[in-house]
């Protein structure tokens, strides 16, 4: 287990280094000489600001030296300044983090509960009405882009409820520290959006995997021992049927990131994703770099967690 973990961590660090290097090339090397500072400083930058960027980042130094500075700043968690808003990038990211965390945690929980629940129900009652309905729902969910689901939910739920004077559900972001009800009201639709789009995949996956597992000999053995069906299902079948689901979760983390950016944009949540989209339209390159690195860190850490739970579920992974 320890060796497995170490190998995974090293691989994660490698990914981070590659992303950092790619970003460096993209922003500092691939663009013409004078444009670097321009790209980092934002569309509204004055010549004075650009000169300041030049000086701060040592843009007249040789590229390898710049690369060294860039990496050592990253290692110390120093993401530089947003020259657009004159604030440290870390401060901006910190302010935007709670909204994003709220969306991600709630959304993932809801989609796993709905997805796995529907998958297990379909698998234990194949061809029932529920199974058929779930299959149709899955296909619709897989086909729908996240932002379309979000926009349609806004029109169908938010606008309708507000027209009828029910103002519980809101768009925009209310911090949980300010008002729990307000926070819940603005989080429900984003969660449902993520769940509708993502749960579909998990319903399909867990249904297929569970159906396969239920056909195995050891399940028949378990049944013939006289164990209750419930115990057979949850102790024996579901556990081993979960491994493909967990590995899919690892694959989906990148997609989740995209989903979060979209959901924040649709519902105006002012989280990391929306900040970044704004930063791009303002040409605030320094902030974009900060977000890219944070996103890569998130994917690496989350993948590590998935790998560990994978190893816990399936002993074969640990041995190999």
């Amino acid at each position, binding site marked *: 287990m320890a060796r497995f973990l170490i190998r995974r961590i090293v691989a994660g660090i490698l990914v981070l280094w590659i992303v950092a290097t790619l970003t460096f090339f993209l922003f500092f090397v691939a663009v013409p000489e004078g444009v670097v500072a321009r790209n980092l400083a934002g569309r509204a930058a004055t010549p004075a600001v650009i000169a300041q960027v030049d000086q701060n980042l040592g843009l007249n130094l040789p590229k390898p030296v710049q690369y060294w500075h860039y990496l050592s700043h990253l290692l110390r968690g120093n993401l530089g300044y947003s020259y657009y808003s004159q604030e440290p990038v870390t401060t901006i990211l910190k302010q935007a983090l709670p909204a994003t965390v709220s969306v991600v945690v709630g959304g993932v929980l809801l989609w796993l509960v709905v997805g796995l629940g529907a998958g297990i129900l379909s698998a234990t009652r194949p061809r029932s009405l529920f199974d058929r309905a779930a299959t149709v729902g899955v296909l619709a969910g897989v086909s729908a*882009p996240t932002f*379309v689901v979000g926009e349609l939910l806004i029109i169908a739920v938010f606008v309708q409820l507000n027209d009828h004077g029910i103002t519980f559900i809101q768009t925009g972001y209310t911090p949980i520290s300010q008002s729990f009800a307000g926070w819940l009201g603005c989080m429900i639709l984003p969660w449902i959006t993520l769940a509708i789009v993502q749960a579909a995949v998990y319903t399909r996956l867990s249904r297929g995997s569970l159906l396969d597992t239920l056909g195995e000999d050891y399940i028949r053995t378990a049944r013939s021992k006289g164990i209750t069906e419930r115990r057979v299902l949850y102790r024996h079948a579901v556990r081993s049927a979960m491994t493909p689901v967990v590995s*899919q979760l690892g694959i989906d983390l990148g997609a989740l990131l995209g989903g979060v950016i979209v959901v924040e944009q649709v519902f105006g949540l002012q989280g990391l994703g929306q900040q970044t989209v704004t930063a791009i339209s303002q040409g605030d390159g320094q902030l974009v770099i900060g977000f890219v690195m944070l996103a890569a860190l998130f994917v690496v850490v989350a993948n590590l967690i998935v790998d560990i739970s994978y190893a816990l579920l399936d002993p074969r992974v640990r041995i190999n």
Partner: protein
Amino acid sequence: MSITEVQFQATAVENAPPQAIEGRSQWQLTWRRLRGDWVAVMSMVVVLLICAIALCAPLIAAATGHGEYQAFPNRGTNAFGQPVGPGANGFPLGTDQIGRDLLVRIVYGARISLFVGLLTTVVATVFGVSIGLIAGYFGGFVDTVLARIIDAVLAFPFIVLALALAAVLGPSLAIVIGVITFFSWAGISRIVRGQTLSLKEKEYIEAARSLGAGPWRIMFVDILPNLLGPVLVLATLYIPTAVSFEATLSFLGIGIPPPAPSWGNILSEAQDHYQTAWWFVVFPAAALLITTLAFNLLGDGIRDALDPRTERIFAGGRTALRKRDSRGKHRRHRGLDLDQAILAGAQADLSADRPMPEWSGGPPRADTASKGG
């Protein structure tokens, strides 16, 4: 039946005009099965219709008399400067925020969506299949390196790269196509690689090799035709994914830059008009959903049709059969298993319609009881 009757029938058979027994190729069989599946046929019709609409976009624009970029500030917006609804002032689906004809914009948007969807899928498929074949066939060091690269691409958050590229280069059609292609080939490669690994151990490959065929001939002449089925299904299912990607990028403002109409950027522009103009959201969203759903259903249908286990033409109903080979574990050992292949893939699992285990008619326990006897 008496003996004379039997003899009579035998003579009748002998005297019947000789009838050539017609062989049917795998593709003919597939086509027959596909035709018998009304969902697949319907989705094919819808797909063709969407293609026709995209091709005829200039004709449709001419019929309405409104140009793709043409704004009608007077007729196209109401007294408050808001979009007008469907049917009003000669705009069949209403207008957008500056009074352009929504129908014309959506129809031209179909061109971009289909162009991006088809082009990226073709490029990604050709590239992905080649890499997968090479990795799977040569094995060893080549395979290790290529498999690592595939894994790395699959694990990379595509949206991050798209964001960074758009920030540096500014959004454009070329970036959209590049980003989508770059992140699509790896999933195909992974599946083709897996299939090649098992196919290259077959006897007929050994036969080809003993006849003196070189590696490239074996890969592209002997192995590739056996993979066309799964690859066709995958490609059909990548089209809607690519269409969604494009729409999402355009929605975020890092895809097709306005004023060129794309379903994604129309929906992005609709964001400020939720309360006042439902049509501004609903029609482009419907176009997008219908397109992606039709391609997904078609891909599902092709997969079912390619899979000899689902012999539903001969059995009638769509769900009635599939019992032929009922035990889950036997299924797994049959040649090319598309469900398994796709399960292993990175994209959404596509196996919702996999064959049912034997007991699927009733509760599981009834079956084990009956089999125990």
